[in-house]
């Protein structure tokens, strides 16, 4: 399967958008998107880790033994997460407070491990970097959109600029946890409606096909094996 470099890059933006099409990394998507600014911060932090870990893993793909590849990937990812964490703490302390423990939790964000396993461990340096960049930008875009929707409805502002805050009482529920689930559900539904109109398959399941822990999940006899049959 040879893809052109442009295709590899744009893959993560729409066709295989990590959040809306692959449904990976739902925890940070729901947790940090209480404001558009936080979405951008989380997205950029994850993108940096994704690009760096994809780059290193693609370079080491022939060196890392098959059996210990997952622990090796996790160690590499954790290293980059620590670097990003220190940088954010030093230069963007407000973002650091807003993201809280979700910043170090990028380590267990399945998008990053999934791209390491599915792409970087099988491809050379340049495509892996482009894949990381495309996926990262796709992730950032959805996080920003979701943050903007929740901030607009829940606080009446956009990137902290007041829009309707003084005219209409904002619906604070959108800033609270239920709002996160609800807005994300609506975004997936909207992306499904668009996909359907274009004749693409709609997303009904969690991103099990792309989950690094897919095999054990299938043994657990849950929704994942049905997703596989559907394919």
């Amino acid at each position: 399967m040879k893809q052109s470099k442009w295709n590899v890059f744009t893959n993560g933006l729409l066709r295989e958008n990590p959040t809306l099409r692959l449904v990976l990394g739902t925890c940070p998507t729901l947790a940090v998107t209480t404001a558009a600014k936080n979405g951008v911060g989380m997205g950029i932090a994850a993108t940096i880790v994704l690009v760096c870990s994809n780059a290193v893993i693609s370079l080491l793909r022939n060196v890392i033994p098959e059996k210990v590849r997952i622990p090796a990937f996790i160690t590499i990812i954790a290293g980059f997460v620590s670097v990003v964490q220190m940088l954010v703490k030093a230069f963007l302390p407000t973002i650091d407070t807003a993201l809280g423990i979700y910043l170090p939790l990028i380590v267990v964000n399945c998008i990053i491990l999934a791209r390491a396993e599915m792409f970087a461990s099988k491809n050379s340096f340049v495509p892996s970097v482009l894949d990381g960049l495309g996926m990262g930008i796709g992730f950032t875009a959805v996080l920003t959109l979701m943050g903007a929707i929740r901030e607009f409805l829940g606080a009446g502002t956009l990137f902290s600029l007041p829009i309707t805050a003084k005219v209409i009482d904002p619906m604070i529920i959108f800033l609270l946890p239920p709002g996160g689930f609800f807005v994300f559900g609506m975004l997936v539904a909207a992306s499904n409606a668009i996909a359907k109109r274009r004749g693409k398959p709609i997303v009904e399941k969690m991103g099990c096909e792309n989950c690094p822990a897919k095999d054990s999940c299938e043994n657990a006899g849950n929704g994942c094996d049905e997703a596989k049959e559907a394919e």
Partner: protein
Amino acid sequence: MKTTTMIVSIILAGLLTNNMVLSKFLGICPFLGVSKKVNTAFSMSIAVTLVMIIATAVTYPIFYFLLRPDFEYLETVVFILVIAAIVQFIEIFLKKYIKPIYNALGIYLPLITTNCAVLGITMLNVTDFDVNAYSFGKLYLFSLTNALSAGLGFMLAMVLFAGIRQRLETADVPEFMKGLPITLVAAALCSLSFLGFAGIGG
């Protein structure tokens, strides 16, 4: 605060007000992926609770005696590696010595390494309790209680939601809402109901 009041408020927070899944968004993958049947959800939660407690028991002393105060930046790397090793070890131990438990819970263990709820709780233990205000013994007790109550809160959310999803299977919803979107909306309502507990336990 007195130790006993502190413990009661930790338990109430973990179960209801600061529920791992419904208000902290940790462990969403198993919450949406493994919650199709009540008994699967129950076994998965038991495995998660077990790993949370053991992971806390190991990582907290590491943080307190080795990483603090000079090497706190190593927290992320050390914690995830320790958790990965612990999960592997538990799996081998159960397989060799306690076969019935392995047969019931073994399949969930590999899923748990990359479960953000487990790494999340070990990190929250570090940020939630003021290291300078209590002795190590108390901090350790609080952390373990926190892990237990977070695990039980995870179980409560999982089992409740599995029950809702079994009903959802037969509901007639618009085609583009089928599956994941309607599940997320149901989760929103579930989380909304948990907001009603706000304020309990201080």
